[in-house]
């Protein structure tokens, strides 16, 4: 009996494909939580990163925020919030968003700040207003790095949303946590496989988005 055997047993059991504890339901739950958290973090992190990067200010503050955000243990925060607020979506969203903001914020800031100054100067010389310099010159050039930051945030959210099953949230982590308590190793390994596959699909999705969204000129030079 090795791990692959358990995985095979999990996926071939028809009972795992239906109902509220079925794979489709849990997968949708996981995706919903992850997308909501990523959207919230992006709404907060992207504008601040773009503006601070454009004006090249606040680097010290941002790196402090990033260090603090990284230092906070997301799992601990999750349990603490659950104890303080009670069960529900809010205590789960707080750690997920706190977790995702630093990579988005810092990468966006670094990406916009380190854009080659000559095209930026050229754009100003042509009379572009600052907002167009930011959105039509700096943003396209910085896009690969910004997407990289969003990607690492997304992967962390997908992983941490798994742990959220411990505080009675749905999602794919349900299988792992329930399986551990029920001493049902088949379920544990099946859940772990699903989460890993979802994380890899996230990687793939970002790769595809980068292929489509990044301008060919930028891709060639990068």
């Amino acid at each position, binding site marked *: 009996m090795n791990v692959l055997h358990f995985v095979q047993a999990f996926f071939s059991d028809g009972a795992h494909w239906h109902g509220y504890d079925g794979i489709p339901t849990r997968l949708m739950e996981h995706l919903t939580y992850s997308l909501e958290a990523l959207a919230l973090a992006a709404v907060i992190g992207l504008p601040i990163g773009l503006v601070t990067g454009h004006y090249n200010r606040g680097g010290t503050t941002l790196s402090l925020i990033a260090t603090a955000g990284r230092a906070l243990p997301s799992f601990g925060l999750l349990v603490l919030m659950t104890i303080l607020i009670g069960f529900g979506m809010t205590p789960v969203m707080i750690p997920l968003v706190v977790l995702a903001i630093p990579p988005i914020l810092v990468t966006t800031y670094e990406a916009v700040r380190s854009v080659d100054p000559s095209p930026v100067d050229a754009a100003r010389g042509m009379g572009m207003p600052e907002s167009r310099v930011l959105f039509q010159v700096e943003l396209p050039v910085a896009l690969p790095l910004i997407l990289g930051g969003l990607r690492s945030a997304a992967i962390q959210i997908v992983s941490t949303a798994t*742990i959220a099953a411990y505080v009675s949230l749905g999602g794919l982590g349900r299988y792992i946590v329930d399986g*551990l308590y029920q001493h049902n190793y088949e379920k544990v390994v099946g859940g772990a496989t699903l*989460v890993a596959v979802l994380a*890899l699909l996230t990687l793939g999705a970002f790769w595809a988005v980068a292929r489509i969204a990044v301008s060919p000129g930028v891709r060639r030079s990068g």
Partner: protein
Amino acid sequence: MNRFFDIPSDLQHSWLGLIGLHLREALLPVLAGLVLALPLAQLCVRFRWLYPPVLWVTTVFYAIPSLAFFVVLIDYTGQTELTVMIPLAVYSLVVLVPAIVDGVRSVPQETLAAATAMGFGPVRRYAQVQLPIAVPAIIAGLRVATVSSISLVSVGMLIGNQGALGNLLHDAQIYNRPELAWNSVLTTAVLAVLADAALVLVRVLLTPWMPSGGRGRRPKPAADRPEPAAPALKDAAR
């Protein structure tokens, strides 16, 4: 305040004992990751074609959630500390390899030529020229690996109380004592910040030729940016 440090006896450790355990479970993997990453990175520098596939494999490993990694290992190493430490070592390795490769590659060609002209063999050139110049990049990688490792140890609580300070979270729930959860979160965060600061100090000591302001300092025009690192792999707390 007394109850804050009053650790339930089922954890079999004092507060300080938990801190020691936590540091051991978090730092040993980083050390193991560093020991493995140095030769691997050197191979990637030496054979350029090796780097893209290595980067792909490490990115894929990095995407695997810690809990999934832990539980799959239970079948092989049981519900032990080792089960927590192996994934953390892998994550550290994944963060460190690109950091070291980028650092070593950023050594200017003239510097290498000068070292060769002075009669340095490949080993001495690596140890005395390339590694010291790559120190800022390596430390940048170590900082990310260490901080995330300290944060991730807590998740080990889920696989049979192997999470050191994270175990307090479980006790906080079953004994209905929120202050234990506060204790866990705050202590872990302080440990992470202190470890981070210690690494910055190590960098300042090891690279006396660099400005000590760190990355917060406004960059001087293009020339030498304080800490080159791979931005895509910068964060790891999950």
